[in-house]
């Protein structure tokens, strides 16, 4: 006997329903300020290519209160993005030693260590 089944619809605001959904949306949202900052960096390259005067003007524009505020907001979102990403990384790359799975904390710690080492290398390279 053929019967009619009922297909439920996902509510428009499904992403508000559960804590995990809200955290997920926040994590996805962090990519927007980071995208804005990426455009900003490209703009910096453009101004650099236009000569010393343009570069100096661009650097001055970075020091305005509005620009500093925007950079702080981007920094907060970048930190949230990185921390939430590193928290998920151990599940993406599980490592086994014999029959034991290496604890998530070690894999996350390795990511933080790599982050720190790369940051130091970049700072050294640009001579800060």
């Amino acid at each position, binding site marked *: 006997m053929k019967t009619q*089944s*009922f297909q439920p619809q996902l509510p428009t605001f*499904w992403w508000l329903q559960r804590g*995990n959904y809200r955290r*997920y949306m926040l994590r*996805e949202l962090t990519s927007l300020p980071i995208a804005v900052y990426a455009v900003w960096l490209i703009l910096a390259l453009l101004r650099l290519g236009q000569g010393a005067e343009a570069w100096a003007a661009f650097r001055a524009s970075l020091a305005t209160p509005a620009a500093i505020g925007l950079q702080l907001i981007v920094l907060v979102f970048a930190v949230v993005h990185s921390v939430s990403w590193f928290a998920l990384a151990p599940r*993406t*790359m599980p490592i086994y030693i014999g029959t034991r799975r290496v604890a998530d904390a070690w894999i996350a710690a390795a990511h933080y260590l790599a982050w720190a080492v790369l940051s130091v290398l970049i700072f050294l390279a640009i001579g800060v």
Partner: protein
Amino acid sequence: MNSSSPSSAASTRMVTLDVARFRPESEPAPSWQSYQVPVLEEWTVLDALNHVKDHIDGSLSYRWSCHMAVCGSCGMMVNGNPTLSCKSFLRELPDQIRIEPLANLKVIRDLVVEQNRLIDGMAAAKTWLIPREPPPADQAYRQTPAQLAQYRPLSMCINCMLCYAACPQVALNPGYLGPAALALAQRYNLDSRDAGAIERMQTTASDDGVWECTFIGECSEVCPKHVDPAGAIQQMKLASSLEWFKRRLGLGGDA
């Protein structure tokens, strides 16, 4: 199963079950029906439903079998959470409980949902052993404890589909293979006896496969067997990316 019935003494706790009913022969969409159920301290939601079925309304339909979180039949939404009703104790729930069929799936009747999504997904993702070599003639395949440990957590899946009810992508993309089918595919990819990982990528790395997952992670939260489908799917994304690069570089590509 608890076959005893609570006494009608005044001290008996009464619980109201608000159950989503769907009778396709008489109504176009589900509707609510409430049942007053006298319950015992040790009862689960499934026990309360069984009481309704046995003593109040025999027409209520739901699936169940083992009553010990092994068979994976009795999954439903309890107060909005995908749960095995046999594992959901009434003493941890309020006096009014909302019971609905598993979210995101087609409802056949009352709390019974279509399971095609998982079954078809498993067939598409080839969730069976594709042997590396024929089994030894006179003995079983050999596997070390370390090789077993690689895939054992993923093999704990009981096909209960709670992860499908937790996953918005299941609702948003009707073709998506789904968390359990993909986790089971990875279970075989990680098996030392198996050589089907590249073959499985035909579907698991397709538009209906792992790339539909956005790592919300709720599938792993609701899994009663701690399978972590979300983690398995990210591992498959990594493997799929590596395979893509290998092919770009003219390496591998044996399938």
